[in-house]
């Protein structure tokens, strides 16, 4: 990174942070299974639009028995992804509460981070243009470098002292 300009370094850093954030997102699927955790991964089919964990219908014909089934499967030693795969096989993709990481659905996961990376590129590009314009316009004013207390606060304090005296 030593040979790169500051603008490029900032952009590369932002992109790495944005794309690096994907890793824990995908890795999170390996956590220990719990009824609440697994049922968050499934969408209730009663029409409420919520997950099996969040469905608030006390007598729901889908979420109530599915939660009981999940409890039994966890007791039998099945992992979260295994239980989710079981329901996907049984009901199809519509039962999942998050897009898969296959085909068109990858777009769902990538777009937010790509958007942030593109945004970062735009910010860095714009800032570098402003910087070169500032440099051409002349050297910076010396009062800009702050001490421990913000210059604005100091100005206010000074005027307050003047008002009092």
């Amino acid at each position: 990174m030593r040979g790169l300009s500051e603008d490029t370094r900032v952009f590369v850093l932002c992109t790495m942070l944005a794309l690096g954030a994907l890793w824990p997102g995908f890795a999170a699927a390996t956590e220990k299974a719990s009824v609440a955790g697994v049922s968050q991964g499934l969408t209730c089919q009663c029409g409420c639009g919520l997950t099996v964990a969040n469905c608030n219908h006390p007598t729901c014909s889908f979420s109530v028995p599915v939660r009981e089934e999940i409890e039994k499967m966890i007791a039998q030693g099945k992992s979260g992804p295994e239980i989710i795969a079981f329901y996907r096989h049984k009901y199809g993709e519509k039962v999942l509460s998050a897009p898969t990481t296959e085909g068109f659905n990858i777009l769902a996961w990538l777009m937010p981070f790509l958007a942030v990376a593109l945004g970062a590129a735009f910010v860095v590009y714009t800032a570098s243009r402003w910087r070169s314009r500032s440099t051409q316009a002349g050297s910076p004013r010396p009062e800009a470098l702050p001490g421990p207390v913000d210059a604005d606060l100091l100005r206010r304090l000074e005027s307050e002292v003047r008002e009092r005296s």
Partner: protein
Amino acid sequence: MADLGRLSLLIAFVLAIYSIGANLIGARHGRGDFLSSARHALWAMCAMLTLAAAALWVGLLNSDFSLEYVAAYSSTTLPIPYKITALWGGQQGSLLFWTWLLSIFTSVAAFQNRRRNPEITPYAMAVLAGVAVFFLGMLNFVTRPFDLISPVPAEGTDLNPLLQNYWMAVHPPSLYAGYVSSTVPFAFGAAALITGRLDDSWIRSTRRWAIFSWFFLTLGNMFGARWAYEVLGWGGYWAWDPVENAAFMPWLVMTAYLHSVMIQERKDMLKVWNLALIGLAFALTIFGTFITRSGVISSVHSFTQSGLGPYFLSFLIFVVVAYTGLLIFRAPQLRSPAEFESYLSREAAFLFNNLVLVGIAFAVFWGTIFPVLSEAVRGVKITVGPPFFNRVNGPLALALMFLMGVGPLIAWRRTTPENLARSFGAPVLAGIACGLAAYGMGVHSWYVLASISVSAFVLGTIAVEFRRGVVARRHMVGEPPARALVNLVAKNNRRYGGYIIHIGVVVAFLGIVASSFFKLEVKKAVRPGDTFNVGSYQLRYLGVVPTDTPHLESAVANIQVSRDGREIARMAPAKLFYKREQQPATRVAIRSTPLADLYVVLAGLDENGGQATFEVFLTPLVFWLWAGGLLMVVGTVVVMWPNVRERAAIAEALGKAATREPIGEPAPGGE
């Protein structure tokens, strides 16, 4: 009542159209009499809408089932407080409520600006009246709240049981107030674009409106989360439902706007960006309404099959296209002499803060509409729920928290590495120490450790900032520490109120992280007298007490809660049955402490009252989510507190604008 309501809405519609014309004619031809008349028309529109809302309330309170709306959303046995809240419990009533709020805010803005901003105010009022025309058009011709039903039913269908909760008295009004009040800064932004008066006077004169909107969006989201927590019975407070997302997105964009306007005020930069953000915030409020009322995306909040979708979509497209067109048209005039020296500056921190806030808003938007895209492209209907939003937004939220710590301590223009080390040394050490301590205490999730470290870092930077201010006051004014602290906040309320809001955000963030990662869930079927353990609590089921009222039947369980063998509380979760709707529901019991909430749901009950099944959640630190919300509210009140110095600055800025070319306004005192 129905005739009075219908007539009021029709007159309000005509007045709104008249106000647009009178404002435009008055502004173009410098006719003060037209402007004055347009203003009076807006106030009269507000009076008409007040009358219409009152008419519907009278109908609800008198159980006048000849009105279709009253028959659909109330009953004779519905308690009076819920008859009042039923105004926003259904499609037509909530639209009426929305429009009524819009007319109130428009009237206040018209009054505030009757002698200010003479160049842009008429156009802003025309935009506000234009938005009112759309909503009044809907109320008069598409979804009418005063339609009659024949034959008149003897009894109403009743309000949805989920809405029969005290949080529903405050959640929708707060959210609507937040949504609707964002129209005022949007209208002034649009007016600035129309007139070409593109200095920051429109921002200064609507900043309080933007903060007001943000304040109510914060309250609305918090109240909604609390409602979900207490009513829905799944132990959580946020489900990333499309309508929740629709309320969250304008909050994010408004937050970005409130930060970026500081750069414009200070450095005269980001004019296009600020105008774009306020336009986006308003468009997102309409998008939220479109989602709620169109049925395009299934949601627990949806008003089913309302058929309003195409109207809202058309309005949304019109707003976006017209506003973007104006922005492009004025782009050459919006170029500013931007100064940027270093990425180690507050400007840079604010730019990246805006990037992340808008990035999160985009992620939420993308996740919300992706099911529609998937169905259009692949023909497969999928759901995008909490796992997606948590994984995508989790890292972005961490980045945002980090920037929240960096922004306040870094100087405008540039900071030297020495100052950077001096400012951030202690907060960074605090962050590392807290992370290590948490690891030593057995926390091994990378996200939780990072959250704890970043939160400690942010709180550290805020503490440094308060300490510096207090030390400076003590040194220069000679005040004792406590008084210096109070005066520091009082005399710099905008800045230190902002820090209080930041503390609230950190506290709420920690509450969210802890309650999401460490929630304990126990499900148990027990008989009266049985005891079971949840964490360090022992719960003993003592039995169930049935009750019966004309409105609902309930079975209330009695649970003795002990800790270390000592009784500490009695809890009473219940199963309810609403007779009118023939609908069962649950009432959870919550014992809240700063360390953890014990949350008990009566999930099942034998017909003969023997065995009961309980779902119990032990949720750590969720208390701090609400405490953080409260701190955000307190901070916002501090920010909005009238400040003589700020008023003088606004008056000065507006005075400069007003001296350019006044157009036929009545002289002060002339009204």
